């Protein structure tokens, strides 16, 4: 054999590395998590409102608001009957927050797509159940692909009940996949599902407050006002609200097609509260004719919070850092759990947490997220970080910090999130090239009970012993925020 050929064969056959089982499993978990996150997000393009973004610039907001106010004034004058409804449109989100169960049925339409033969794409059904009381849900997701082989619609369902949830794929290959989450994650997921459903039905609160009444209609004997609003991204929203009670009876999302016509893209024709779900709605058994790709015992675990953290390594450190989970507090400050750990040698990092105190400076981790700023193009206000506590789970430390703004937070910051400002405390950490990192609070904590449930609950999730640090309480955190505000006030 020629020498060149031998080199080729050696490279081809003998240069081979094999991932060890620990790496293999860890990567597989990340890969499957990434897939699942992507599948949860993917239905978004089908519902015109879900992918909306808040207007970015102040000028756009002012101009848009002025236009809406002008139109609203005209409309309210014209439709005098609706000028003083017996309810407030902005109370609508509370209907979902207070419900025991929420049931939404309807159809997705695809007005912007055609089948290869020129016919309309068949609509896809929506049938979503949220059992808020028992932390269970079942919701439909729809994916549409458009390629050379035509348009295809894929419908699947995700059922969540307790620590387990399954994905039922209704495609050609009827299959079920099991996943496993903690009770906390499940509760958080359901809460976010409610938020998602709310977003699908009527957008956010800003959207609602821009609505005007454009007509009335009787649905199943109920006299309804029809409210309408246009968003900044080409979408139009309509809600049918009972004229007497303000109850949401129907909702639609519309899109303007190439011809200039507004077409219904999603029609939520049935919206029910507090009705009993049919038996089997939240069953985790594969439906008849479906095969299970894994089992509850081999379910894929879902980690809490944001994963896929950026990292780097050098001779001394094997390092990952980034946000895990954030909550806004009612006073505008932010509680953020972030990680900055060395999975190969936790004790190396443990020393950096020695001596840190509640309300004191953040631990001098090699990369320190010392402040936040709104990620909306503005650099104000600056949210400075203070240490609250740290937790440790399986050698991974999580730092829990309170970020207090030095001014009034902008109203859209909940939607746009916060950019995490960082600095290097050790020279070697300069090797870490950081992308723009943002975090969005899950929601706003209003009470001590919510704080205990969500913030302390998250801390407990990321602690080996499953308990939150004892010295962190809602009152202490609020007092700390107040103290900081007082000290920085001009």
């Amino acid at each position: 054999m020629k020498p060149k050929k031998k080199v080729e064969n050696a490279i081809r056959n003998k240069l081979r590395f094999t991932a060890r089982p620990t790496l293999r499993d860890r990567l597989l978990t990340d890969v499957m998590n990434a897939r699942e996150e992507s599948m949860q997000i993917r239905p978004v393009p089908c519902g015109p409102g879900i992918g909306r973004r808040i207007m970015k610039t102040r000028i756009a907001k002012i101009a848009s608001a002025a236009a809406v106010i002008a139109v609203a004034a005209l409309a309210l004058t014209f439709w005098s009957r609706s000028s003083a409804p017996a309810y407030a449109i902005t109370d609508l989100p509370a209907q979902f927050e207070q419900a025991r169960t929420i049931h939404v049925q309807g159809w997705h339409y695809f007005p912007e797509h055609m089948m290869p033969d020129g016919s309309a794409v068949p609509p896809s059904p929506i049938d979503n159940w949220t059992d808020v009381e028992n932390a269970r849900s079942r919701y439909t997701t729809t994916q549409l692909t458009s390629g050379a082989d035509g348009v295809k619609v894929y419908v699947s369902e995700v059922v969540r009940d307790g620590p387990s949830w399954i994905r039922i794929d209704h495609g050609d290959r009827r299959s079920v996949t099991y996943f496993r989450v903690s009770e906390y994650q499940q509760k958080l997921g359901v809460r976010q599902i409610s938020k998602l459903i709310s977003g699908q039905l009527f957008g956010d609160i800003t959207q609602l407050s821009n609505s005007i009444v454009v007509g009335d209609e009787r649905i199943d004997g109920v006299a309804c006002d029809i409210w309408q609003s246009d968003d900044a991204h080409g979408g139009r929203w309509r809600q049918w609200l009972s004229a007497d009670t303000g109850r949401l009876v129907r909702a639609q999302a519309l899109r303007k097609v190439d011809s200039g016509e507004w077409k219904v893209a999603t029609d939520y024709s049935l919206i029910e509260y507090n009705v009993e779900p049919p038996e089997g709605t939240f069953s985790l058994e594969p439906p008849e004719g479906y095969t299970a790709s894994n089992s509850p015992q081999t379910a894929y675990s879902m980690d809490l919070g944001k994963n896929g953290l950026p990292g780097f390594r050098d001779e001394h450190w094997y390092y990952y850092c980034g946000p895990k989970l954030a909550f806004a507090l009612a006073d505008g400050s932010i509680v953020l759990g972030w990680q900055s750990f060395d999975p190969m040698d936790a004790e190396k990092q443990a020393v950096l947490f020695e001596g840190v105190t509640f309300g004191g400076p953040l631990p001098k981790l090699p990369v320190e997220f010392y402040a936040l700023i709104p990620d909306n193009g503005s650099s104000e206000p600056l949210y400075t970080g203070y240490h609250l506590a740290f937790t440790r789970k399986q050698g991974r430390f999580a730092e829990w910090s309170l970020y207090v703004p030095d001014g009034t937070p902008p109203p859209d910051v909940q939607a746009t999130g916060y950019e995490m400002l960082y600095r290097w405390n050790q020279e070697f950490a300069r090797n870490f090239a950081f992308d723009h990192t943002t975090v969005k609070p899950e929601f706003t904590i209003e009470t001590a009970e919510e704080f205990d449930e969500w913030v302390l609950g998250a801390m407990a999730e990321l602690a080996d012993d499953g308990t939150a640090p004892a010295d962190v309480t809602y009152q202490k955190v609020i007092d700390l925020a107040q103290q900081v505000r007082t000290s920085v006030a001009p």
Partner: protein
Amino acid sequence: MAIAEDELLKWKFRRGSPEALARIYEKYLDSMLTLAMGLLNDRAAAEDVVHDVFVSFARLGPGFRLRGRLSGYLATSVVNRVRDHRRRSRRQVQASGRESRPARESVEPDHVASFTEQAAQLNEAVAQLPDEQREVVLLRLKADMKFRDIAKLQQVSINTVQGRYRYGLDRLRSMLNGEVEK
């Protein structure tokens, strides 16, 4: 057979099949790790690259459309990530004014990969090649990519790629100095 299986996997993956994704991962993890290791000679960095490649791939889901070969697609993704990594490393070295560090072995107890002594020796030799030659040799021999596709990736002519391959093998032959005979 492998290509037929890949076509099926692509089809299933596009339809959201987790089993297809898991199979693709199992099938190509080691070869992509080998490729990344060969290109970087740094196990931790190779792990990061392969992690990012598969995680990004998993996120494609139903939006995934590929006419070519799956192995070629993944290998190209690895190469692109490796190039990003190199660029970043160069910037960091320039910014800090440090000397470039020699390739190092992982120190963590949870080793990324297991390999034979001969594989390590081959990898060290491959690591001595210039980046362009190393890419060509590894893409050709470890990812079975055609010279034509490598040329597209490197944005050079096919003759240049074949030249790099030839020079690369010559250098390897002299560096290995008969070791491959064993």
